[in-house]
Each structure stands twice: as structure tokens, then as C-alpha cells.
């Protein structure tokens, strides 16, 4: 059986050792050749390119590189490779459509293409964002579940568990992960969406055992839910994440993997990140037997992993188009924002990313979120997920040319503050958490931005 069982597992310790340095340093020289060979070109004025020929050339570049380069295994320092035939044996036999969740909350994942009218799935959540444990965490999850445009729900990152700081590899990690999923389960029930599918990489846990401990039909992640098993940048995998994938698959849970090609890193420029990103998607589908990959390009200059930089938007769109035009392997576009809740900038960031994702043949989310910690706690709210979801619905079927204009307008609104965004406010200061409604000030700002977006081409239906 091609894929995780057992091609990947068999090859993890085969072949000769490759030094990590050598693996990393060899990426850019080869990728430069592929960029030239396949004429891949980043245009800063076109974050959403509408060039089918370039999208197909990018796919070809990524496939050539995937077969040639393979994946470096952290634990064995070996490289595993797949032939093109093996890869196509996986990609050609992916099952779709797929259904997740239960009863009225069941959703359908269908392959999309650029400009597709097929409904994209929208995944709301705050993975990476630090949130106060317990009721605040639960109410944040309720906030996502109460948004009708949100189809699936992802986690946040609790800062403490039972008032205690979480240490990696400690038993508290496992306790924390189990509690966390319990809060999400409670949240969807209390919001009247008990059948909503969950998509979890426990924020309380950095390691595999707690991620696996949350597999539980009653109060954890269930059959048909998703467990994250990310790839490492660039083109690397490890036993920890593969272990999560094995546990997920053998418990009838989907694997969501993640790729984060870095602009400015080993892949070099945006074009390089796009080529490496396509290679990572292809290898993720094969090596992890993943159901979906989350597309999360990053740029060296934004430390919180925001996906809303002009260059990352282009890379997202390019990868999304390349993959969706040439395979049925679905991609979700991670939405990581730079600004914080309560600001106009975060709403424009969410809108821009949603427009890129949907017009480029992807699904939207998880997000909007951002890597926060320390004193930056609870600075995220469901309102930006509302924007992400409503824009996703509104631009379904929109041409890439029109989406590009919307994205460029959004960039004008937030690009000047990228890297040093406005501070924002906490969730509990923006919402009335007793009755679970946004405060008037935040709601007014949302409506103002929404009206502005509508005036600039977003055909909101409501």
C-alpha cells in the first residue's frame, strides 16, 4: 500500500546518512534552476495570479523536485524518496467527496479548482494563539461554533493548565491536552453544534503522546475528526509527527498535515518557496497518507508566522492553484494574522487571506490566528473568523482577477503596519461573554469594514 502503511515506515531508516546542513544547503541551488527551467515568476502587483500555464509549470517543477529531493528524516538523518509512479498511485486514488461530522453539522469536502463554485470548507480556530484556560477557552470555541459560516473547529493554545505552566514531555501536557479537547467538545454542544467536526493539534502539547491521548469517542477527537501531523521546514519529517499520523489513521481519524515553506529561508525567494511548497504538498499526501494539507507559507521578516504578507499571499495562491489544477488532493489555507483582535487591520487580513484561498482552489483555515504567548494572551476573537467565513462564502466562484483586486485593496489597509501592528484588545473585552455576543464597538467596526469591502468588490450575501 503506497503511503504511510508501509512505504514510508519501511524507508525511514534506509539508505546512507545525509547531514542536515548538506540537505538544507542543496535546496536553493537546485530550486533556482527549477525556477528558471519552469519560468516561475513572482509579481508583487498580482498576489492572486491568473496564469493557468504558470500554475501547471509550477506543479511540474514541484513534482520534479519532490521525486528528486525526497524528505529528510530527523530521527535517522536519512532521506526517503518516492518515485513519480508511487506518488501518482496515491494521488490518483484519493477518495472524494469525504464527509466529516454528524447530523446537521455534517460537512462535505470536495475537490476544488481555481474559481470553483464548489463550497469551500471554512475552519475556524485559534491554533498558536495563547488563550486563558477553562471558561475563556471554552467561550472562544463557542464563539467560533456560533458562526454559521464556520464548518469545522480547531483549537487554541491554553497558557496554563489548572494554573500550572505546561512543560513539554511532562504528564501535565497529556492532562492539558485531554482537558483542552474536552472544552472544545463542551463548546460545540453548548452552541447547538454537537456534530461539528474537530481539527486538533493540542495547544497544551508539543509532543506526540498527548496528541494521541485525546483520541476518545466520548470526550476527545472521534472517528472522522482530524489530528494534525505537520511537516518540518523544509522537506523534513520526524518520528513524532509520523507517530501521530499512524495513531490517527488506525483510529479512523483523518490526518491533516501542514507545510510552511519559508520565503527568505532555505528556499530563497517567493518562487523558491512556491516550488518547495508544491513538493511538500505532494510528499505530504504520499508520506503521511494525509486527507488534507494546510498551506502555510511564512516569511522571514514576520516572526509570528503571519500568512498575510504580500509575498506569502502570492505563494499561497500559487501553491493552491498548482495543486488544485493538477490533483484532487485538498488544501486548506491557514490564516495567520499579524494584527490582534479589535483592530480594523485584522479584519482586512482575514478578508485578504480568505479571498486568496477560495479563488485559488483551496478551502479556508484554520484561523484566523497567530503565534502569540507571554503577555499576548486572549488577543483573538471569533469576529475575525466571521469575516474570514463571510468573505469565503461571498467570493466562491469569483475570478482570480477580481479576487486579486480585493486582495490588493485589503493590502493597502494593513500592509503599512505589518510587522508592528496595532495592539488590539482581549476577547473578553470585545465580547459580552455572559450572553456570547460581540460588544457594540467591535460589531460597529466589523460592519464598517464589511461595508468598505462590499464597496470594493466583495459580494456579501448578508
Amino acid at each position, binding site marked *: 500500500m503506497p503511503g504511510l502503511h508501509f512505504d514510508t515506515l519501511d524507508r525511514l531508516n534506509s539508505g546512507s546518512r545525509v547531514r542536515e546542513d548538506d540537505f*538544507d*544547503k542543496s*535546496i*536553493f*541551488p537546485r530550486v533556482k534552476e527549477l525556477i528558471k527551467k519552469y519560468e516561475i515568476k513572482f509579481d508583487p502587483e498580482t498576489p492572486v495570479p491568473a496564469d493557468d500555464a504558470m500554475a501547471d509549470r509550477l506543479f511540474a517543477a514541484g513534482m520534479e523536485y519532490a521525486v528528486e529531493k525526497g524528505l529528510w528524516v*530527523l530521527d535517522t538523518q536519512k532521506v526517503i524518496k518516492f518515485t513519480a509512479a508511487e506518488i501518482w498511485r496515491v494521488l490518483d486514488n484519493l477518495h472524494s467527496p469525504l464527509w466529516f461530522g454528524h447530523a446537521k453539522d455534517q460537512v462535505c469536502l470536495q475537490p476544488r479548482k481555481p474559481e470553483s463554485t464548489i463550497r469551500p470548507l471554512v475552519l475556524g480556530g485559534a491554533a*498558536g494563539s*495563547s488563550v486563558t484556560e477553562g471558561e475563556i477557552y471554552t467561550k472562544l470555541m463557542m464563539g467560533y461554533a456560533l458562526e454559521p459560516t464556520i464548518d469545522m473547529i480547531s483549537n487554541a*493554545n491554553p*497558557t496554563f493548565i489548572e494554573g500550572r*505552566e*505546561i*512543560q*513539554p*514531555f511532562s504528564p501535565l*501536557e497529556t492532562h492539558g491536552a485531554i482537558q483542552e479537547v474536552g472544552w472544545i467538545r463542551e463548546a460545540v454542544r453548548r452552541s447547538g453544534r454537537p456534530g461539528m467536526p474537530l481539527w486538533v493539534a493540542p*495547544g*497544551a*502539547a*508539543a*509532543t506526540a503522546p498527548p496528541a494521541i491521548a485525546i483520541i476518545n469517542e466520548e470526550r476527545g477527537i472521534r472517528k472522522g475528526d482530524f489530528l494534525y501531523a505537520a511537516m*518540518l*521546514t523544509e522537506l523534513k519529517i*520526524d518520528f*513524532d509527527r509520523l507517530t501521530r499520523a499512524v495513531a490517527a489513521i488506525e483510529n479512523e481519524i483523518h490526518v491533516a498535515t501542514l507545510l510552511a515553506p*519559508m520565503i*527568505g*529561508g*532555505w*528556499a*530563497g*525567494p517567493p518562487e*523558491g518557496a512556491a516550488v518547495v511548497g508544491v513538493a511538500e504538498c505532494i510528499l505530504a499526501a504520499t508520506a503521511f497518507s494525509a486527507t488534507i494539507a494546510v498551506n502555510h507559507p511564512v516569511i*522571514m*521578516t514576520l*516572526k*509570528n*508566522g503571519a500568512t498575510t504578507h504580500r509575498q506569502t499571499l502570492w505563494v499561497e495562491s500559487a501553491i493552491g492553484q498548482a495543486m488544485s489544477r493538477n490533483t484532487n488532493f485538498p488544501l486548506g489555507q491557514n490564516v495567520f494574522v499579524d494584527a490582534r483582535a479589535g483592530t480594523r487591520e485584522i479584519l482586512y487580513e482575514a478578508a485578504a487571506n480568505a479571498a486568496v484561498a477560495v479563488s485559488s482552489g483551496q478551502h479556508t483555515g484554520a484561523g484566523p490566528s497567530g*503565534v*502569540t*504567548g*507571554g*503577555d*499576548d494572551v486572549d488577543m483573538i476573537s471569533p469576529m475575525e473568523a466571521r469575516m474570514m467565513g463571510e468573505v469565503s462564502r461571498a467570493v466562491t466562484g469569483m475570478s482570480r482577477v477580481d479576487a486579486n483586486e480585493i486582495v490588493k485593496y485589503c493590502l493597502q489597509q494593513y500592509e503599512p503596519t505589518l510587522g508592528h501592528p496595532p495592539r488590539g484588545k482581549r476577547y473578553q473585552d470585545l465580547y459580552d461573554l455572559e450572553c456570547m455576543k460581540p460588544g457594540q464597538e467591535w460589531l460597529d467596526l466589523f460592519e464598517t469594514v464589511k461595508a468598505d469591502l462590499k464597496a470594493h468588490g466583495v459580494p456579501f450575501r448578508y
Partner: protein
Amino acid sequence: MNLNDLSDSQQTVLKELYQGVLDGDEEQCTLMAQKTHEEGIPPLEVIDRVLTPALREVGEAFNRMDIYLPEMVVCADAMQAAIKVLEQFFDKADQRTKGTLVLGTVKGDIHDIGKNIFKVLLEVNGFKVIDLGRDIAPVTFIDQAEDSGAEIIAMSGLLSTSLSMMRDTIQILNDDGIRDKFNVIIGGGPTSQNFAEEIGADGYADTAYEGVQLCNEILIVKA
């Protein structure tokens, strides 16, 4: 040494060495470094007048994203090739480094690209870096810092769970009564200036470039 006092051939050699660094040409740098000795130019002058400014230019280009990490690494490797040649001609008293850092991604975290970028920038700016890699326990940072005589412990992480590891490292230093032996700096996605102050770190940097400037401020260049 006044550059204007140099002969034409000396100036040519220095210019070609400078360009060799910018081009990331190890062969050129090796050749030209040898020629500086043949031309009678003191090795420390070569480092101060040519290699350091060349690398500064490379670092600034990287910070502007005019060049990328792989290109900067190639330039740094070319510089190291030149230094390797020049080291043969140092007096012991000439050998110097700005300072030594023990660097790593903390326990439970395997994200290391930011740390790797920081390492390269530090080395091109004259620091000695002991890179411990990823998933490093607090006691390992401390033990390696003690064994190497490092002045700075630099910790990186991307996951929110990494914050507790940074806090633990400083706590252990305090408990062992050796906090004053080291400067401790932090960086990475979930970190912040406020968090650095909260845990008693000596500094925080938002970017790798700022991290180098922080290290320059913390340490005094040894003569």
C-alpha cells in the same frame, strides 16, 4: 594601517577579497587571503578592514531580503575559508572573538530556522557560536555554557510551551547561584520584551538582526 598608504597590488588583493566574500566564492577568498600575507598585510587588518565590512554588507542585504539565507550562508562560508587561511598567520595575541554564545531551540520544540539564521548572522559578526541544535533541555544549555565559558545563553522557540522551558533555565541558574555568570537572551514567535522581563532574561530580540545588535550591546569586544 591607512588604506591610502597601501600599494596598488595590496589594494587590488584586498578589493578582490572583499568581492570574493560578496560573491560567496570560497576559492577566491582562500586565494586572496593567502595573497594578503604575501603582500605583507597583517591578518588582523584584513579582518577589520575587509572581512568584517564585507560581511556587514552581506548581513544588511539579508536583512533587507535582497539576498536569502542560502546566499548569506555561502558568503559566510567564503569568509570562514579566508579566516582559516589567515589564522595560520596570527600571533596568539591576535586571536579574538567578540564573545561566545550557547544557542539552541528549547526542549519540546523542533523549530529552528530562526535560530539557524541567527547563528549565521552571529558568526558573520564575529561571535563564536556553540549551536546545540533543537529540543534542548535547560540543564544542557547551562552545562554547555559552563563548559565552554560562554558569556551568553540564547534560547529560541516557536511553541507556546517553549516559554516554560525558558523560564526554567533562568530558574535553574538562580537556584544554582550562577545567574550572574551568564547573560540570557530569548527570541522566537511567542516571546516578547514583556515576557523576557517577567522571567528575568537579559534581553529579547524580535529578529535575528536585532539579536546580533543585542549581543553587541551586551558584550564588550575583547582586545
